[in-house]
């Protein structure tokens, strides 16, 4: 076996394991946090602090009966959960977990990038896969042959297309700022600290890291709102609004197929936070303390920093879910098309003007 193949397969296996175990943790964390915010106890029976509750739930779902509704479109009904799960695993492939490291494999020194696949158009890969993820929801809703899932599916297609436009437009200034569409380069461009040509300002901003969130705060706000809508979380969870649509697009699914949707939803949420951290919060950048800590610990520090940033964002996701009421459908569309997209267009124009002036000088000078 060639070394490239070994590295590739190992990376894929590690990412699969990471995402699966991480989801167990994430579901428990969300239930505990929401319970805390609503003055409840939350899961506390299975394992210490109820941390094994998700495992118990997963086993229950695996053992449950698989129901195929009489009016369902068989092929599409079986395809939809797979279409939900595959993009969610693939998106994580482009997130860099750290700088490249030197390893010795089969007596040969190799330089390994700590990223599933370092493609030069990573941003587009992310957008393309998240647009594929729409199909799973739409098809699940349509193929169930029942009216509530269908409503959920139609809502989903409209919502996800609308917010994907805003999300893509919010990313363009970031790409311009970083000068690359590769995720690895975008992280690298955020290293160092902010600087200013004015000396007094320089001493004030000089200790702030050069993360994209500071110059691109408007883009960050738009991207964050759009990403919550893209993963169909509260307050944008009209796709599965329990009070109106029973369970939305997955009403008719049971057992393992329902578990696949559930898994995909949480992996997507984790991916979206990791991608937000990579685009705006410097990704894996952070102090590694290589002088103080033993080398095998400081080598893991980049991944730890990415984890800290990702889980901070996830906490905000859960916080929003516990606090905000759901938007009405027309409010959702108005926010997307009449607020987020125009603002992101104006912000794109402003950013390009600033970058143009910085690059080429003022047009009259």
């Amino acid at each position, binding site marked *: 076996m060639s070394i490239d193949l070994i590295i590739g397969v190992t990376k894929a296996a590690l990412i699969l394991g990471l995402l699966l175990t991480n989801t167990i943790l994430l579901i428990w964390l969300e239930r505990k946090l929401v319970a805390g915010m609503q003055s409840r106890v939350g899961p506390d029976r299975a394992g210490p602090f109820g941390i094994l509750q998700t495992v118990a739930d997963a086993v229950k779902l695996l053992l449950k009966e698989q129901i195929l509704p009489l009016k369902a479109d068989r092929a599409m009904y079986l395809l939809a959960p797979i279409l939900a799960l595959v993009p969610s695993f693939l998106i994580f492939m482009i997130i860099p977990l750290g700088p490249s490291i030197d390893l010795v494999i089969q007596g040969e020194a190799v330089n390994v990038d700590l990223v599933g696949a370092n493609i030069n*158009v990573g941003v587009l890969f992310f*957008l*393309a896969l998240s647009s*594929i993820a729409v199909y799973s929801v739409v098809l699940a809703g349509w193929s169930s042959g029942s009216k509530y899932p269908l409503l959920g599916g*139609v809502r989903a297609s409209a919502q996800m297309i609308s917010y*994907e436009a805003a999300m893509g437009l919010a990313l363009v200034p970031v790409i311009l700022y970083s000068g690359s569409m590769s995720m690895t380069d975008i992280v690298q461009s955020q290293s160092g600290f902010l600087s200013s040509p004015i000396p007094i300002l320089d001493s004030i901003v000089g200790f702030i890291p050069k993360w994209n969130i500071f110059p691109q705060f408007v883009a960050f706000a738009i991207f964050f709102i759009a990403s919550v809508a893209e993963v169909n979380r509260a307050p944008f969870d009209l796709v599965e609004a329990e009070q109106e649509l029973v369970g939305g697009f997955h009403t008719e699914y049971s057992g393992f197929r329902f578990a696949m949707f559930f898994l995909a939803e949480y992996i997507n949420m984790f991916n979206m936070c990791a991608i937000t951290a990579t685009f705006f919060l410097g990704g894996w950048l952070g102090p590694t303390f290589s002088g103080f800590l033993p080398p095998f610990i400081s080598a893991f520090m980049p991944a730890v920093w990415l984890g800290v940033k990702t889980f901070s964002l996830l906490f905000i996701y859960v916080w929003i879910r516990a606090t905000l009421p759901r938007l009405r459908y027309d409010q959702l569309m108005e926010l997307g098309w009449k607020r987020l997209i125009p603002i992101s267009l104006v912000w794109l124009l402003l950013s390009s003007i600033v970058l143009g002036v910085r690059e080429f000088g003022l047009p009259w000078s």
Partner: protein
Amino acid sequence: MLELLLFAVPAGLVILGALIVIFAKNPVHNSMGLVLTLASLAIIYITLNATFVAMVQMLVYAGAVMTLFLFVIMMIGVDKPEQTREEIKGQTLLVSGTLFILIGLVSFIVVNSGFKWDLYFPAVEYSLEGTPDLIAASLFTEWVLPFEIISLLLIVATAAAIALAYDTKVRKPK
């Protein structure tokens, strides 16, 4: 061997998708067949090192356009049986005739070249990196005028569509 596999599998899927588009009875199945064709084409683009084109293909065609198709199909409902009556007189004859001419042309090329594809499709030099840069550079320097004209055309088309669809007699909903 791997190269052949990387071509043969997506190529087979392209054809399978196209056949689904033509022969499936259900409009949703048709559109999903088209998605299969477009996605498999994207894989072929990736094997040709055109990652940017592949991603745009996924994003625009497989992502946005086909989702809109699905949305429209669901909105109008898929229970209506397909219309099999000929709208244009002799359309079956016309289309199949054109198809036969096309097949004839292709087989003529194949036979005439002695089954050497390189003769008609010479291998193009490509760069491994910077495909977006190259596309952007040629799009915004050499082809900037056609590019702008196309964007103008699209806006005109959008405005026309809205003007046609918007019923002025109906009072504006408040």
